[in-house]
């Protein structure tokens, strides 16, 4: 990958990491009121995958969506507002951290594990019909691969060759349940093979690897050869949610082992090996942080929605059809 492109990915990954860290702080202060699921440690998946998408492609995400949303281009300012439940959020503050929609950016997410996968087939069906070579990228976790929606969606997408790139983020745990005990097939991409797909399993902490394998899947889908299935093996550094009793299901040693494989640290050393100076990277880090502090400060000034605003679009009145 060209150095400039790699630097762009680096900047995006720093953005996701800093955003996540700041959100966790806001959660400790109870300013993020609930529902925040940290993404730190998995940035290479969102950033690598979204780097090969077009603006008019659609992303369907899950209950841990903030990384995917930022990587798809949702503004950090609107994302802070959404996390804080303020007007100005992508869903005007009524969705919160795990269910919001940014229709301009083609971004949807929801908090029912696995169910976005069946919705993604319909997005793919409409794209197949319109013939503009758009694709739908659907992010979900290892836990989702145990739901009925996963299996129904994979089969449907396969029999109708839908342009959906299924991206499984295997972060080793479905809430507190370890993949090694709660998923029957290893690697999980074997399950895609059962539906006639070329499921692949890759190092999800290597942003270049993710970008290149997702790009191949996206290309295939744009040319009628969909769907594609990619399992990205990664790890979440924080608990399932901020403050979960994580030491009941994993050890400090295990977390430390994975932190040593941090996708951001790896990309950083690769850049330095390629001749980028520490100063240049530090400047990127600082710029991202400064921008985010200003976005956060702005978001904290925004009002909460009134009950009337929050409930004004439950349904379209019948006489306005």
């Amino acid at each position, binding site marked *: 990958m060209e150095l400039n492109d790699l630097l762009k990915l680096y900047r995006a990954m720093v953005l996701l990491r800093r955003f996540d860290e700041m959100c966790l702080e806001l959660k400790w202060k109870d300013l993020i009121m609930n529902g925040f699921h940290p993404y730190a440690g998995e940035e290479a998946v969102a950033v690598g995958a979204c780097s090969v998408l077009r603006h008019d492609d659609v992303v369907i995400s899950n209950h841990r969506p903030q990384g995917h949303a930022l990587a798809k281009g949702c503004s950090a300012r609107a994302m802070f507002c959404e996390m804080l439940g303020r007007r100005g959020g992508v869903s005007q503050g009524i969705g919160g951290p795990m269910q919001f929609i940014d*229709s301009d950016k083609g971004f949807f997410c929801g908090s029912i594990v696995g169910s976005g996968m069946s919705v993604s087939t*319909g997005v793919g069906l409409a794209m197949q019909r319109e013939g503009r070579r758009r694709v739908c990228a659907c992010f979900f976790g290892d836990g989702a691969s145990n739901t009925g929606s996963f299996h129904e969606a994979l089969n449907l997408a396969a029999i109708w060759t839908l342009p959906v790139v299924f991206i499984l983020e295997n972060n080793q745990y479905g809430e507190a349940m370890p993949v090694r005990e709660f998923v029957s097939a290893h690697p999980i991409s074997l399950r895609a093979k059962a539906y006639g797909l070329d499921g692949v399993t890759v190092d999800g902490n290597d942003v270049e690897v993710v970008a290149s394998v997702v790009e191949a899947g996206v290309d295939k889908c744009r040319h009628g050869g969909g769907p594609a299935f990619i399992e990205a093996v990664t790890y979440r550094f924080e608990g399932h949610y901020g403050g979960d009793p994580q030491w009941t299901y994993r050890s400090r040693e295990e977390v430390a082992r994975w932190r040593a494989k941090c996708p951001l640290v790896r990309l950083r050393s690769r850049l330095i090996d390629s001749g980028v100076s520490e100063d240049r990277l530090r400047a990127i880090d600082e710029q991202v942080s400064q921008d985010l502090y200003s976005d956060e400060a702005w978001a904290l000034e925004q009002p909460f929605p009134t009950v009337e605003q929050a409930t004004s679009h439950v349904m379209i009145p019948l006489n306005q059809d």
Partner: protein
Amino acid sequence: MQEITFSEAIRQAYQEEMRSDPAVYLIGEDIGRWGNLFGASRGLLEEFGPAQVKDAPISEAAIAGCAVGSAVMGMRPIAEIMYVDFISIAMDQIVNHACKYHQLSNGQVRVPVVFRTQGGVGMRNSSQHSQSLENWFVNVPGLITVMPSTPHDVKGLLKSAVRNDNPVVFIEHKSLYFTKGSVPDGEYLVPLGVADVKREGRDVTVIATSWMVLHALKAADRLAEQGVDCEVVDPRTLWPLDKKTLVDSVLKTRHCVVVTEAPAEGGWSGEAASVISEACFENLAAPVKRVCGMRTGVPYGKIEKLVVPNEDWIVDAVHELLA
């Protein structure tokens, strides 16, 4: 006017809507090759092809999810769930997705999906193929629930549902498909959210849904011979409810019976009774009475018809009310 079956009325609605708008498409089990269990989509695969008439695998979650995803992208799916009993598999996509996106997007995203399905007794298929589950949907904000009773209404309501931008659950009754009725030759719509007085009367209002409307009309004939003049009101859309038509009728008759095939407890029949009680309390000559299906799994075979209301149950209830 033409005299056609309920099933043919659905087929005509499909055909007209698909001819006028290529964004309309059908997705469901056995809707193409078989043309639906009751012939409601017969011949449509031949006319519109497999891109617009999509036979789907037995995957209700995927059918519903696919419908939702395509609807937000501008298509207008009619997703058929073969039996309402199977809709339990699709509830997540209907309740958590179809009914949430419009509000979550601050009104930007529309989800124009019709979930068409059928319920009730009539095929002697026991408790997992014979239920009346409409009450589940009435309680979900953002969802329209429709239950037509005649060929005229099913055609006009289905066309309105397809053109509506909200998600709609459209529940037919399996005992109605081969009933016949008069339907205009040309195109027409029946508006959602508007009740219909199926028979005018002075003495008692019988509010009945779906197949129960037919029983109520028969009961009304018999009661007329006994000197009791029944008004039969069919809400057609359970939610949004046309409260005015229901209330106006009861203000006139001062007596009200609500009839549903679904069990009474926690259901729409109680909602209707509340609406009437709240609006007509001082005019009611007696408390609102409900005639509903027994709180039981529907048993196999011919006995199925003995656990849901019929003409006799309604006649008895009206006599008790007027006593």
